[in-house]
């Protein structure tokens, strides 16, 4: 990472930290008719963007720095979201339509008599927290172990990550699977005793998302800055060279992939209480592709760029889907084409000094099939 990029990162972190303090103050301590007031719906909207930004940073860690173009990161995000959703469902208790103290409404509706094993423990917050990191982490560990050991790379890897999220998408749709089927989980009441409807909870969730984004940035930054990070970039640029130097390339990829999946899971967990629902559509393959677009738009292999890209694209999406609802996908596609053609280093490239002639662009290693070293 160049010192310049680090400075931009630092500015971004300071702005986020300021937002984490100022936004709740402006939202809660000002009168509703004051020009400085930020209405709760906006707080919530920006909190959601921050969760997307965490997902983008997670994706940038594996795509930007290791060349793994995962088009299945939405699955890790959604799994973290479901884990949080399950906790929130069990918090509803007797306030549900059927007032069953143990079983969430959809289970009563399906005539289930007992709580499925997968739901045990989710009434306890620390357990839910653990599952938020463990479930995406373990899935990434198992998936990555097979994929990286079999040396699946490039576009093939991207395709199987899509297949992974699509399989989960289909599975979660089934009522029998036990996670609310088509409707997913919703009607949440409160989180560790605080009502999700109140403006103060919304403000707190916004701040928590900002802090989580700062932490995600620092963790990723520390990883990239270590010798491991250098090795990771080397794996991206010349995988077989690293093997012949004696590095276990698969372990290097696996570690980054698991860390990234855990980050994505945390992002999903913060997202669900803010949007109030989690359903199988979060696993839709298009969601994961959209995340890759945020990273590309913001600037790959920059971390900050990824976060900025996520916020900018989603901001545009909110506005666009309000103004021209039918054309958003065209807008997104056009944006992607424009950025690819004119801003190879993304939006962040506008801030960075023109490329030194000494630094070759990391040319799209992700889609190149095993670059290489081979004669």
């Amino acid at each position: 990472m160049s010192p310049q990029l680090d400075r931009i990162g630092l500015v971004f972190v300071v702005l986020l930290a300021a937002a984490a303090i100022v936004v709740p103050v402006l939202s809660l301590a000002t009168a509703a008719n004051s020009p400085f007031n930020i209405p709760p719906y906006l707080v919530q909207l920006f909190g959601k963007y921050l969760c997307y930004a965490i997902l983008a940073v997670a994706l940038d860690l594996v795509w930007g720095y290791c060349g793994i173009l995962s088009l299945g990161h939405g699955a890790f995000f959604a799994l973290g979201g479901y884990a949080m959703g399950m906790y929130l469902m069990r918090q509803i208790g007797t306030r549900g339509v059927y007032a069953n103290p143990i079983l969430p409404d959809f289970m009563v509706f399906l005539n289930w008599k007992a709580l499925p094993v997968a739901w045990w423990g989710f009434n306890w917050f620390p357990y839910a927290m653990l599952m938020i990191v463990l479930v995406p982490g373990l899935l990434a560990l198992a998936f990555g172990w097979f994929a990286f050991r079999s040396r699946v790379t490039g576009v093939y890897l991207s395709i199987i990550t899509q297949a992974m999220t699509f399989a989960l998408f289909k599975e979660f749709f089934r009522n029998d699977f036990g996670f609310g089927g088509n409707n997913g989980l919703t009607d949440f009441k409160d989180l560790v005793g605080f009502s999700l409807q109140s403006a103060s909870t919304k403000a707190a969730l916004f701040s928590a998302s900002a802090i989580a984004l700062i932490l995600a940035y620092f963790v990723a930054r520390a990883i990239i800055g270590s010798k491991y990070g250098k090795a990771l970039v080397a794996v991206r640029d010349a995988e077989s060279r690293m093997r012949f130097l004696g590095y276990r390339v698969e372990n290097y990829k696996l570690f980054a992939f698991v860390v990234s999946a855990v980050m994505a899971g945390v992002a999903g967990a913060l997202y669900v209480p803010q949007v109030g629902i989690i359903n199988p559509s979060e696993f839709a393959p298009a969601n994961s592709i959209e995340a890759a677009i945020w990273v590309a738009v913001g600037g790959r292999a920059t971390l900050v760029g990824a976060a900025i890209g996520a916020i900018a694209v989603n901001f545009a999406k909110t506005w666009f889907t309000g103004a021209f609802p039918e054309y958003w996908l065209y807008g997104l596609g056009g944006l992607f084409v424009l950025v690819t053609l004119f801003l190879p280093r993304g939006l962040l490239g506008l801030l960075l000094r023109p490329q030194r002639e000494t630094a070759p662009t990391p040319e799209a290693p992700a889609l190149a099939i095993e670059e290489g070293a081979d004669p």
Partner: protein
Amino acid sequence: MTLAETSNPTLTASILYLDGISVSFDGYKALRSLSLTLAPGEMRAIIGPNGAGKTTMMDVITGKTRPDEGEAMFDGKYDLTRLDEAEIATLGVGRKFQKPTVFENHTVEDNLLLATKAPRGVLATLFGREAPDVRATIDRILVTTRLKDHHARVAGSLSHGQKQWLEIGMLLAQDPKLLLVDEPVAGMTDAETAATAELLREIAENHSVVVVEHDMTFVRELGVKVTCLHEGSVLAEGTLDQVSADPRVVEVYLGR
């Protein structure tokens, strides 16, 4: 790792021992019962026309390709056919590719740092501290490879010849027992070629080296034993003069 039977004196006295190695790809026989022995400390030049199996031989030694049959032993005791690339590299086999392969987005210094002998595990590189002598080693190699003035440059911006040297420097940093060097002077100027020959002779003083090369002037400058491969097996072996006087070698190189 299996301990080979110690009854074979050629094997136990060798750093590299290939016996009857055959490899075929979809019916194409890249190697046919290739046998070759390298003594510790020896430097050997391998010549042969395109398709003679030089690169496939390197692939077998470094674990990239599994031979269909034959024995490949390193240091008299390690069975190379059972190990993968990383394990073989850790045992002490370094490889330089035909096309210079360096980490283009890293500085020259970082390239060497990644190659330096050090624990290769994820946790070791994530949390480990740099060994105190690493910088001294890197400095020494920068001088040897004439890259001292370029240490902070991004490797992708180096000239072709400098990249070749950097890659040789990375091999030195790895400090392997056996170096496999594939066409080190391809695309180099005459002056660079001469300098590279000198560099390799220097390296050969305390390493075993196998050099694959087309350039006969360069092979002559190395002044070492030569093995000529043809259609996947050894055609002739000896000094360059002996080999190039062999009528079969002449036929292979010049055609009938």
